[in-house]
């Protein structure tokens, strides 16, 4: 589904953040992306999400060479990837329901078409009672679940989660991890970027470790 071959990345004239990164992400796979802070996890996530282009190397996204993808084609490909950011990035003036429904609004769907699905998904992630609430009122865990629901509402092929447990307590981190596992069971490939060792210890899954800009993969 996603294939990186000898990918390198540098910002401007600075040093290379990522060097000769090579890996595949298969369909319905589950992997952790880990490494120390500043190792380049977020940059790799941004490359996976096509918000950055590599300085060198080849990236194939959904069987398309990224070098040949123009800006007009990017939105359609991005819709196949759900992203959960550490800082949630919920829009504060929209309710939880409206935030989760945002990707469907962007697709031009009428609210009557998606209302029941959004409500059902919100109930599934445990926000059924909080759908009318604005994000500033939500707790960290609720925001995280809202962000996950927003990433999932269009049923993406790939879910990228950048430090999804960075702002939550250990019990909630375990709940979120189970949520990701269940999503993977339902057919979504999952990449979780984290340096939370306790999270890694809970599930034995493929680990991609970034150190000094180089990636090691442990299947």
């Amino acid at each position, binding site marked *: 589904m996603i294939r990186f071959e000898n990918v390198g990345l540098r910002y401007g004239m600075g040093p290379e953040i990522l060097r000769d990164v090579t890996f*595949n992400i*298969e*369909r*319905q*796979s*589950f992997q952790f992306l880990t490494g120390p802070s500043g190792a380049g996890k977020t940059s790799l996530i941004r490359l996976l999400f096509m918000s950055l282009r590599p300085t060198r190397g080849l990236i194939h996204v959904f*069987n398309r060479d990224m070098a040949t993808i123009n*800006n*007009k084609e990017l939105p*359609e490909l*991005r*819709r*196949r990837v759900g992203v959960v950011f550490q800082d949630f990035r*919920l*829009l504060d*003036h*929209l309710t939880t329901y*409206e935030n989760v*429904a*945002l*990707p*469907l*609004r*962007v*697709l031009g769907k009428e*609210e009557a078409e*998606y*209302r*029941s*699905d959004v*409500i*059902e*998904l919100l*109930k*599934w992630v*445990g926000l*059924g009672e909080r*759908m009318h609430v604005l994000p500033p009122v939500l707790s960290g865990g609720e925001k995280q679940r809202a962000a996950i629901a*927003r990433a*999932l509402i*269009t*049923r993406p*092929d790939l879910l990228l989660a950048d430090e999804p447990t960075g702002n939550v307590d250990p019990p909630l981190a*375990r*709940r979120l991890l*189970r*949520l990701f*596992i*269940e999503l*993977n*069971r*339902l*057919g979504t490939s999952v990449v979780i970027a984290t340096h939370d060792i306790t999270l890694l210890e809970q*599930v*034995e*899954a*493929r*680990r991609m470790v970034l150190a000094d800009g180089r990636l090691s993969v*442990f*299947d």
Partner: protein
Amino acid sequence: MAPKTPTRPPDAGPAADAPANPSPARAPSVELGTARPGTRPEKRTPKGKAADPVTKTGKMADAARAAGDFASRMSLPKPRLPQRLKRKDQQAGGDRLRPSAPIVPPQSVAGRALTLVVAIMSYLACLTVGSVSVVWDAAQDWSNDLVREVTIQIRPADGVDMLLQIENAVTITQRFAGVGTVRAMSDEETKALLQPWLGSGLDLDTLPVPRLVQVTVDDPSALDLAGLKQRIEQDVKGASLDDHSVWTSRLAAMAGAVVAGGFGILALVLFSMVLSVVFATRAAVASNRDVVSVLHFVGAEDGFIAREFQRHFLVLGLRGGIAGGVFACICFLLLEMFTRQTAGLAGSDQMSALFGPVAVSTPGYLGVIGVVFLVAVLTALTSGLAVKSQLARID
């Protein structure tokens, strides 16, 4: 690395739910750690084809129902399939949602400031349109009044009977089509005209004072003015015909200059408003960077984002434009009331003599409505272009 089965977490739901569906806590022992490209292909999107989010979302909802035990582990109400219809009934009341809020936040300090700027610019533009309308109407009135009046001047000369010449001129003029009344000004009227310069008690016989014949024109299109001029100058000694064309052309030139100046000011006001909107839009995009960023990563196209901002600024422009237009109309009405109330005062009479009744006509008010819509459309178009340009830089 072989997948291992994680231990059951302490906050897991009741064990009675576990057999209903595969437990996600046990899932990694079966599912995780290895890629399965061929697994459950019916749930996947075919390669190279766009995802169908509605169908997929429906599947997600079905899957959510199947994952009822997972929800129960999270201490959540367990979604049950048979209750779906009941839930839809409940949604009508219990899950009642507010109308979807606009994606670009409607209220912000920058938005209010820009509304005020647009309102002021619209007000100035509407004032300009109203002033141009008043001057234009006055110029039309001046031209019409002058064209409907012609003056014959007969200069005194030695051996010429002035009264005979006047009578001759009146007779000739009355024969022409389109002419209304022909009236020779009496001695008293002539004295009254000269009184400010020559004083009272003037004896017209002792001075070579020209005499005037006032001709009113009923139908300017029927009157052969050139023919009348030729006949008068040929048959009446010392006579000349003044059709006020020099004065009319000067007035027309002045009115044209005022109108052109008004349109110039209008163009400058609109141009400065466009510039204000460009800067305000850039500020708005910058202050809504998080909105743009979120829209980007949920897969919104640049056109969609630009349209959202454009809609926002169209509403803003309409609000500002209507506020400015209404305030300008109130000013016009107050000015009209003021000039009516002060009728008879010296200054007011001077103003009325020059401009007629100082009132904005219907075309002036229509112009104000046009300015309001022009301002709104310009605001929306300008913001759309500015947003697209900003997005191009972000990409």
